[in-house]
C-alpha cells in the first residue's frame, strides 16, 4: 500500500468558487492509502510546491495526487518538485478539476462531487504507479544520407558544415541525381549544372563527407542514436583509388552500343563509362551486362589502355558495416512508365518524348549538343505539343492520384526556352489547370504566355497518331473554345507523373519507416514535423516525402540537416519512460504487436525459459526497444495474451480508474 498525499488546489477562485475544496480534501483523506490531504490557494506557486515537498518529507509519502488544473499545464512542474525531494516523479498523478470540472460546471454540489470522483480515480491509479526511470542512450556522431541527388547533397553538406561525419550512399556511379540531368532551372533559368556541380565537388572535397557511390543499403539495425547499417559497394571493376578519370578507356572500349541511361537511352555509351563529365567521383565503371571481358573473357582493351592500372576484372561486391546516429532518406523520384498511356503513342513514335528526355535533348551536354532535334530524323521541329498531367491526378488505376507539382513549371520553362531559341517553332501546352504557387512562379508562367507567345490550351489530348510522313497528329479538346483540335505536330512532350524511386519501399521496410499508399515516406506530423519520419532518428529529404521542386527540396534538405545536427549534438538521449514493455513469460511471439507498432520498436528474440519440469525451452518473445517506443499503446491492445503493457498507463491502472469512476 502506498502512502499517498492529496493536494487540492483552489487556483484562486478558479476552482474554489465552484468546487468545495475543503470537502474534497476532507473526503479524499479518508480514501485507502491516503495519509495526508490538504488544500491550498495556489499549488503551483513556490509556497504551494514547498507545501508538497514538506509533506513528502514529513509523512514519507510514496505517492502524490494533485487536484488542480490540467496535467497538460503543470504536470511537469509538479513532477520536478517531487523529484527535488527524492520522490520518483512518476509517482505523481494530477486530477484535472479545473478545465474538466470547475470551469464547466455551475452547480457547486455537482462539481464538488465530480472533483471527488476525479480525485479518487487519481488515487486509485497512484496506488498502482511504479517508479519509472527515464533511460539514456548514447548517440553515434555520424549521419548517413541515402541518395546523392540535390536533396542528399544539400543535407550532407549542411551536416558536415556543423562538424559531423556524414556518408552519402548513392546507387548510381555518380552523385548528382535528377538535377544533373536537367538543363535549366525555373524560375530563374540558370543552368542546373552550374549550380549543382560546385556542390558535388564540395562533397568530394569536404573531409567530413564520404561518398559511397554505386552502392546500396542492404540492412539497417538499431535505433535512434545507434543504427548499424550494411552498405553494399557494387563491383565497378575499376579501383576507385587508382582511376584518374582520364576517360581514355571510355573512348577505346569496343562495345559502343550500350544505351546511355544518363541521356535516357537517347544515345549510346560504351561498356566502360563515366556517366558525365562532371561526375563525382570521376571514376570509370564497367557495365557487366555489356563488357565482353566480364561476359566471356575476350577483350581486356580497357586494361591495356589504362596507364593507372585501375581496371580490375576480378573486383567483387564489398559489404561495409558502419554505425550512425541518424539516417536521412533522400531517395528521390523517377517519371512513371508510360505503358498504360499508349494513346499518346510513346512507344510507337520516337518523337513522342517525356519532359525529362526533352531536358537531355536541350542540354548542351546531351545527345544533340543542345540543339533541339527530332530523335527520329534529326530535323528541327516546328510544332511542339506539350501534354500535361500524363498519369498525374489519375484515379483510374493507370497513373497516380496526386499532382506531381513540378510539371506546370518545367513545362512553362521548356516552352519558353524553345520559343526563345527557335522563334519559328509553335508551342502548344494542353493543361487541365496551371498550378503555379511559389515565389515568382505565376509571373514566370505568364511570361511564357505573354512574352513568348506559347499557346496554352485548356483541355486534354485524347489521341496521338504518328503518320508515315513523320508528322504527328494530335487530337485534343479545347474546352474554352468548345472544339476538338487536330494539330499536325513534329514533336509531342509528355509531362509524365513522378513517383518515388523503386528502392524506397524496401528501404522503408528496413528502416521501419512508414509510407503512404503511393510509396512516399510519411512525415511524423504533416504540419509540425515535416522532415522527420515517425520512426525516431529517420529524417526525410526531398521528393521521397512528396513531390517538390528544387528550391523546396533544398530547403527541406537543410531542415532535415538541422534536425540531424540537433540530434547529433546531444550527448545522450533521454528516453520517455512511459513506454511499452513485454512480460516475456506470457508472450506468445505471435507478432501482433509488431504489426501495429508504427515505430518498429518491437523485435523478437529466441529466449530460453525454464519450465516447471526443470527442462528448458526456447521461445520466440517480443522485446521492446525503449529508446524507439513512443508509448502509444497500440501493442498493448493488439496483444492477445496481455503480455504487453504500458508504463504509466498500465492495464491495471486504467482499470482502477474505471472502477473508481464507476464506484456506486
Amino acid at each position, binding site marked *: 500500500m502506498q502512502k499517498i498525499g492529496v493536494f487540492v488546489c483552489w487556483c484562486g477562485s478558479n476552482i474554489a468558487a465552484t468546487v468545495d475544496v475543503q470537502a474534497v480534501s476532507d473526503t479524499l483523506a479518508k480514501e485507502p492509502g491516503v495519509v495526508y490531504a490538504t488544500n491550498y490557494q495556489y499549488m503551483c506557486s513556490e509556497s504551494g510546491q514547498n507545501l508538497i515537498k514538506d509533506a513528502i518529507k514529513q509523512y514519507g509519502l510514496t505517492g502524490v495526487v494533485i487536484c488542480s488544473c490540467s496535467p497538460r499545464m503543470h504536470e511537469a512542474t509538479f513532477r520536478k518538485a517531487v523529484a527535488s525531494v527524492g520522490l520518483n516523479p512518476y509517482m505523481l498523478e494530477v486530477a484535472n478539476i479545473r478545465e474538466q470540472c470547475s470551469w464547466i460546471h455551475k452547480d457547486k454540489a455537482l462539481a464538488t462531487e465530480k472533483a471527488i470522483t476525479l480525485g479518487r480515480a487519481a488515487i486509485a491509479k497512484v496506488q498502482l504507479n511504479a517508479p519509472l526511470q527515464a533511460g539514456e542512450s548514447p548517440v553515434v556522431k555520424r549521419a548517413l544520407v541515402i541518395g546523392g541527388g540535390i536533396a542528399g547533397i544539400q543535407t550532407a553538406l549542411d551536416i558536415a558544415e556543423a562538424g559531423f561525419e556524414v556518408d552519402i550512399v548513392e546507387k548510381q556511379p555518380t552523385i548528382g541525381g535528377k538535377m544533373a540531368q536537367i538543363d535549366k532551372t525555373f524560375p530563374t533559368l540558370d543552368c542546373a549544372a552550374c549550380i549543382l556541380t560546385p556542390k558535388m565537388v564540395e562533397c568530394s572535397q569536404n573531409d567530413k563527407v564520404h561518398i559511397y557511390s554505386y552502392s546500396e543499403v542492404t540492412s539497417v539495425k538499431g535505433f535512434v542514436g545507434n543504427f548499424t547499417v550494411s552498405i553494399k559497394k557494387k563491383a565497378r571493376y575499376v579501383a576507385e583509388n587508382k582511376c584518374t578519370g582520364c576517360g581514355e578507356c571510355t573512348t577505346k572500349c569496343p562495345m559502343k552500343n550500350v544505351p546511355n541511361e544518363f541521356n535516357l537511352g537517347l544515345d549510346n555509351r560504351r561498356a566502360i563509362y563515366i556517366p558525365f563529365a562532371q561526375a563525382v567521383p570521376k571514376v570509370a565503371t564497367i557495365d557487366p551486362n555489356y563488357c565482353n571481358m566480364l561476359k566471356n573473357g575476350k577483350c581486356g582493351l580497357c586494361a591495356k589502355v589504362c596507364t593507372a592500372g585501375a581496371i580490375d576484372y576480378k573486383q567483387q561486391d564489398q559489404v561495409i558495416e558502419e554505425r550512425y546516429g541518424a539516417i536521412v532518406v533522400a531517395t528521390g523520384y523517377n517519371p512513371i512508365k508510360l*505503358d*498504360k*498511356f*499508349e*494513346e499518346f*503513342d510513346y*512507344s*510507337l513514335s520516337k518523337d513522342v518524348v517525356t519532359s525529362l528526355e526533352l531536358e537531355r535533348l536541350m542540354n548542351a551536354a546531351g545527345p544533340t549538343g543542345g540543339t533541339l532535334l527530332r530523335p527520329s530524323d534529326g530535323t528541327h521541329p516546328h510544332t511542339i505539343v506539350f501534354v500535361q498531367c500524363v498519369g498525374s491526378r489519375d484515379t483510374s488505376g493507370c497513373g497516380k492520384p496526386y499532382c506531381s507539382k513540378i510539371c506546370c513549371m518545367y513545362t512553362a520553362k521548356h516552352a519558353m526556352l524553345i520559343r526563345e531559341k527557335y522563334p519559328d517553332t509553335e508551342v502548344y501546352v494542353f493543361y487541365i489547370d496551371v498550378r503555379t504557387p511559389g515565389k515568382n512562379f505565376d509571373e514566370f508562367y505568364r511570361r511564357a504566355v505573354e512574352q513568348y507567345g506559347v499557346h496554352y490550351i485548356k483541355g486534354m489530348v485524347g*489521341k*496521338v*497518331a*504518328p*503518320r*508515315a*510522313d513523320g508528322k504527328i*497528329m494530335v487530337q485534343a479538346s479545347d474546352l474554352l473554345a468548345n472544339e476538338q483540335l487536330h494539330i499536325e505536330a513534329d514533336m509531342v512532350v509528355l509531362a509524365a507523373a513522378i513517383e518515388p524511386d523503386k528502392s524506397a519501399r524496401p528501404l522503408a521496410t528496413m528502416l521501419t519507416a512508414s509510407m503512404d499508399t503511393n510509396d512516399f515516406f510519411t512525415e511524423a506530423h504533416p504540419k509540425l514535423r515535416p522532415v522527420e519520419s515517425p520512426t525516431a532518428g529517420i529524417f526525410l529529404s526531398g521528393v521521397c516525402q512528396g513531390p517538390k521542386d528544387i528550391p523546396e527540396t533544398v530547403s527541406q534538405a537543410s531542415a532535415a540537416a538541422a534536425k540531424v545536427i540537433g540530434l547529433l549534438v546531444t550527448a545522450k538521449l533521454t528516453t520517455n519512460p512511459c513506454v511499452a514493455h513485454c512480460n516475456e513469460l506470457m508472450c506468445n511471439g505471435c507478432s501482433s504487436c509488431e504489426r501495429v507498432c508504427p515505430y518498429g520498436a518491437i523485435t523478437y528474440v529466441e529466449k530460453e525459459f525454464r519450465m516447471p519440469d526443470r527442462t528448458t525451452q526456447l521461445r520466440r518473445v517480443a522485446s521492446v526497444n525503449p529508446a524507439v517506443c513512443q508509448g502509444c499503446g497500440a501493442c498493448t491492445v493488439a496483444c492477445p495474451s496481455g503480455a504487453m503493457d504500458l508504463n504509466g498507463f498500465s492495464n491495471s491502472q486504467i482499470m482502477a480508474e474505471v472502477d473508481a469512476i464507476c464506484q456506486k
Partner: protein
Amino acid sequence: MVYHYYPGCTLKTKAKDLDRYGRKSMEALGITLTELENWQCCGGAFTMAKDEIATKLSSVRALADSRDGVLVTLCSACHNVIKQTNYAMANDAEFAMKANNYSKFDVPYNGETKVMHYLEVLRDVVGFDNLAKAVKNPLKGKKIAAYYGCLLLRPSKALQMDNPENPKILEDFIRAIGAEPVLYPYRNECCGGYMATEDQSVAAKKSGQVMDSAAEMGADMIITACPLCLYNLTKNAPGHQIPVYYFTELLAEALGVKD
C-alpha cells in the same frame, strides 16, 4: 476441357467465313469447338444501364450453360457483350440477383465461367509459338495491319484481353502465321460501328481514317475479328484499295485448311 463455342447471329449469315475458317483452324490445332445448344443473339451491344436486365439474359444463359468449361467467342461484338455481362454477373451483386431471379437456374450463376476470345485461345491455350510450328503455308512477305476496333479491347476492366492502348495479340498472331505486322495508330479507334445505319457519312469518315492510317504505314491488307468492322472498312470507306479479311481466313490459309 470443353470449349463451348458461341458463334453469334452474323457468323451464321453475313460472316460465314469468319466462322467456317475459325472452326476448321481450331480443329486443325486439336481443339474442338462445341457449339452451344440454344444460343440466342447477344444483341450486338452491351446495354450499360444497371437496370437493364432482359437485354442481357441471352448472354447470361449462354454463360450459365458453359459452366463446365470455357466459353469461346469469335465475333468481337459477342465477345464484348458476353464478357461485359460476365463481369457484371461477378461484380454487380444486384444485377446478378435480378438476372438469376429471371433465369431460374438450378444453381445461381455468378460469373464463374471463363470467357475467352478465339485469339485468347490461340495465345493462352495453343500458344503462338506452337501455332507458328503448326503453320504449313507461312504468309511470308505479307505486311498485315491488325485492326482491333473498339469491341475487342474496351472496356479493359471487364474484357481483360490486352493492353487497350498498345495491344499485341493480333500482331503476335500475324507473326505466328509468318507475316509481318504493320503498326499504325488508328488500329484501336472506332470504325463508326452501328452508326452506319444512322449516318453513313460518319462511318465513312471513321473507316476512312483507319484505312488511311494503315495504308500509309505500308499495309498490304487488314485483318479484323469483327463483321461490322469488315463491313464498314470495305463498304463505307470508298476509295481504299487495301483488302480486309477475317483473321480466321488467313489462319486457315496458313494452316493449309482453307478449301
